[in-house]
């Protein structure tokens, strides 16, 4: 008796699963069997599929209560099956397949996400599927990267000499800066953190303009309002650097959304570091960008250090690239010291962002070969040998040079000529900037609002009056006019 019962159970199970494959709906035989009935006694098909005995138990009730028609509620309780007969349920957010196996998703993958690279350590391409760059573009990229490196070295020295108050170098990240800029168009709006002057350099900001901002003189586009390296330029589509970390990330999303509304053939690009990816702004921005379908490229310069915090103390995920999936954002990991890989990836990202209206996350792996800033001495928290290794053996500038030299696009003479020219230009720019007057007094009070309010006009009058009366108390190189 028991055996035969068991057998009939199995037969019923087979039947049930077959019916699941056929699909359910108002028209199917079984649904007709079960849907017309009092909702309270109605056994939804999901449980019955799992528990075939319930079929037998409820059949009688179903027949008896068939005359009570109530179809609306059942629709929601309906479950569906996918092609393999696995149960699906349409929870809010979409259909989800069930499983009887309780399996936690592991916290780290078996293998870390692979890193896209084109040029090997010797500057030789190990693949052919990268965006072919012309000689002009390649040489310009190299020249800009070298200029950035020379500029950084000399400005850093100037700060040490006390000629400027502060400086931030981008040593080791020249390829990220320049190659990404080269892949973009001038209409793409840049929202930088503070380690991306190479993007401005590529777009045509001159060494003199850099020096003017660092010295805060009259010619500074920022009118001497900000610390050094807080560059900004409307005509280069480069939003002024703001000291607050990661605030530029959601701002880039908002601007990208506006670009989309305007139907422009452009995207926004925002840069931040591994440290910046820990902020709330990063989370909100990526989440929003995916929901709003904004054409924005997020470039994370994962250089291993957030001042003195190594990445192992910053996050426990496999870097930043895996987080893209957490937000529904397409992402890629790239060798940040490989100019061609960066160029290729950003080209592709830009195309996807604009044509498909989607955000893209690019994690560029690199190393911060310099100190965090002139206020930092990184030998205090990391071995000097590590710094030297990355600065010397893995320098992105040298790697690109090896490639263009192997193409006969560059030579030793061109190298020394460029180096000495740039060095001279930077030194000249610094000397000139140092001697230019500081911005006039009036600029203390302008731009607080669109039009100066009466209280600020009064304060300015008061200040001028005081300077007129006590000129010896005020610096002579600040024009009172």
């Amino acid at each position, binding site marked *: 008796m028991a055996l035969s019962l068991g057998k009939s159970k199995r037969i019923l199970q087979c039947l049930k699963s077959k019916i699941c494959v056929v699909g359910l709906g108002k028209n199917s035989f079984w649904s007709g069997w079960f849907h017309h009935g009092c909702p309270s006694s109605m056994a939804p098909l999901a449980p019955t599929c799992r528990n075939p005995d319930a079929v037998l138990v409820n059949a009688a009730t179903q027949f008896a209560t068939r005359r009570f028609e109530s179809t609306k509620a059942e629709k929601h309780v309906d479950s569906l099956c996918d092609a393999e007969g696995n149960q699906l349920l349409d929870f809010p957010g979409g259909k989800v397949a069930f499983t009887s196996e309780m399996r936690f998703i592991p916290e780290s993958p078996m293998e870390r996400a692979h890193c896209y690279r084109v040029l090997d350590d010797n500057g030789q391409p190990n693949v052919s599927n990268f965006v072919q760059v012309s000689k002009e573009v390649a040489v310009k990229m190299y020249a800009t990267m070298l200029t950035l490196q020379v500029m950084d070295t000399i400005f850093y020295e100037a700060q040490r000499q006390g000629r400027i108050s502060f400086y931030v170098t981008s040593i080791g990240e020249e390829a990220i800066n320049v190659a990404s800029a080269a892949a973009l168009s001038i209409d793409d*709006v840049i*929202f930088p953190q503070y380690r991306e002057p190479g993007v401005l350099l590529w777009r045509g900001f001159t060494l003199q303009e850099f020096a003017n901002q660092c010295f805060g003189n009259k010619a*500074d*586009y*920022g*009118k001497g*309002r*900000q610390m050094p390296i*807080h560059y*900004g*330029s*409307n005509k280069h589509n480069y*939003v*002024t650097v*703001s000291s*607050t970390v990661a*605030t*530029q*990330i*959601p*701002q*880039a*999303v*908002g*601007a*990208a*959304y*506006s*670009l989309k*509304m305007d139907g422009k053939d452009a995207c*926004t690009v925002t840069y931040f570091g591994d440290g910046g990816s820990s902020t*709330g*702004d990063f*989370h*909100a*921005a990526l*989440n*929003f960008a995916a*929901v*709003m379908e904004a054409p924005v490229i997020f470039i994370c310069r994962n250089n291993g250090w957030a001042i003195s915090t190594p990445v192992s103390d910053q996050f426990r995920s496999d870097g930043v690239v895996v987080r893209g999936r957490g937000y529904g954002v397409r992402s890629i990991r790239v060798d940040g010291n490989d100019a061609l890989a960066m160029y290729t990836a950003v080209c592709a990202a830009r195309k996807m962002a604009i044509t498909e209206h989607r955000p893209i996350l690019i994690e560029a792996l690199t190393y911060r070969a310099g100190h965090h800033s002139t206020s930092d001495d990184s030998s205090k928290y990391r071995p000097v040998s590590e710094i030297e290794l990355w600065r010397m053996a893995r320098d992105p500038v040298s790697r690109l040079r090896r490639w263009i030299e192997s193409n006969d696009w560059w030579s030793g003479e061109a190298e020394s000529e460029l180096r000495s020219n740039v060095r001279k230009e930077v030194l000249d720019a610094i000397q000139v900037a140092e001697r230019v007057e500081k911005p006039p007094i009036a*600029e203390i009070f*302008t*731009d*607080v*609002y*669109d039009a100066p*309010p*009466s*209280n600020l006009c009064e304060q300015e009058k008061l200040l001028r009056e005081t300077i007129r009366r006590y000129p010896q108390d005020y610096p002579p190189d600040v024009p009172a006019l």
Partner: protein
Amino acid sequence: MALQTNKPLNGRRRGQSKRDQATLQNGVVWTITAPFALYLADQTLRRSSAQVRSEEAKMLGIVSRKVLGQSLGRIRPAVWALRNYSSAEKQMTVRDALNSALDEEMSADPKVFLMGEEVGEYQGAYKISKGLLEKYGPERVLDTPITEAGFTGIGVGAAYYGLKPVVEFMTFNFSMQAIDHIINSAAKSNYMSAGQISVPIVFRGPNGAAAGVGAQHSQCYAAWYGSCPGLKVLSPYSSEDARGLLKAAIRDPDPVIFLENELLYGESFPISAEVLDSSFCLPIGKAKIEREGRDVTITAFSKMVGFALKAADILAKDGISAEIINLRSIRPLDTPTINASVRKTNRLVTVEEGFPQHGVGAEICMAVVEESFGYLDAPVERIAGADVPMPYAANLERMAVPQIEDIVRAAKRACYRSTAMAATA
């Protein structure tokens, strides 16, 4: 100084546009739909019947005062008032005023868009954005995820690009999550970029104490934002204020903080045809003298203006004529108007709901001391909320917020009529 009135409440501007009429009619319709009915019922229960009666009397009083201020009115006041009151006198709630202002500005400028929690499908947490999603679509009315820091940053980025976002905070208490973006990005960007990046953004939402919402939903942020250069801070009282100031805020190229008040949303105010015109706009930085007086100046903003006006009625019975200044603009503060008033009355009482230390009243006191010390006949009196996080229990809440009696007592003290301090009463 003459009463700052709008065009007279006669039938001269009868030719309202159909749209304005429809807006008003829609406003009336919205007011009586179910959720509103519940809300209004709730509000009415909270207000005592005495308050309701005095408000009606006040409205009638305003009408007759405005009429008296006109030359024609002097000749036949009663008939004129009756004609005006029955024909062109319109009432509008602050909620409808805000809604209509948003609607008109969004329709006039395609760059204006609204974002915030629940502003779209839910029609606005306080129904301020009712009907806007339907009219302008999801591209211009954005329901945001729950991250003030996130959507404020996004709004600021959109403003950098050139759009004109109106960002709604469910209450300004939640703006603290976004205050870095408001101050360090929105307020300072124009200055830090030397004019290259302007930020034409408006942050609006209810501010200050509501009724029974506890400490984390009741703080007033007027003083916090009012101290920050680069921001403009406005706080409307009546429907006319709400309409005019919100329109001015949206049109302004600088970042504006617009502090509304939840309890005022359902209050109705008389409104003239000029105010209903879609080009109506109030200047930022100008206070309004709600009621002229000779003996003492009382400054207030937002809900406290209503309390101050009622206090003025009580004081009038004791022969003290109080001049009530509705600040309208916290930053820039209209110190010329305040000083001119103090030079006339020689006594000052400042009223605010927020915490006393470093408050708006402290700033007004100093502004008057700097300019008009010689004109003061008595120390400046400051009425503010209690220096405690807002308690929940109704009796404690009542004691933590200024009441009309406190204002009356302070005014009497300033006028040397002996009266005890509130705490000992």
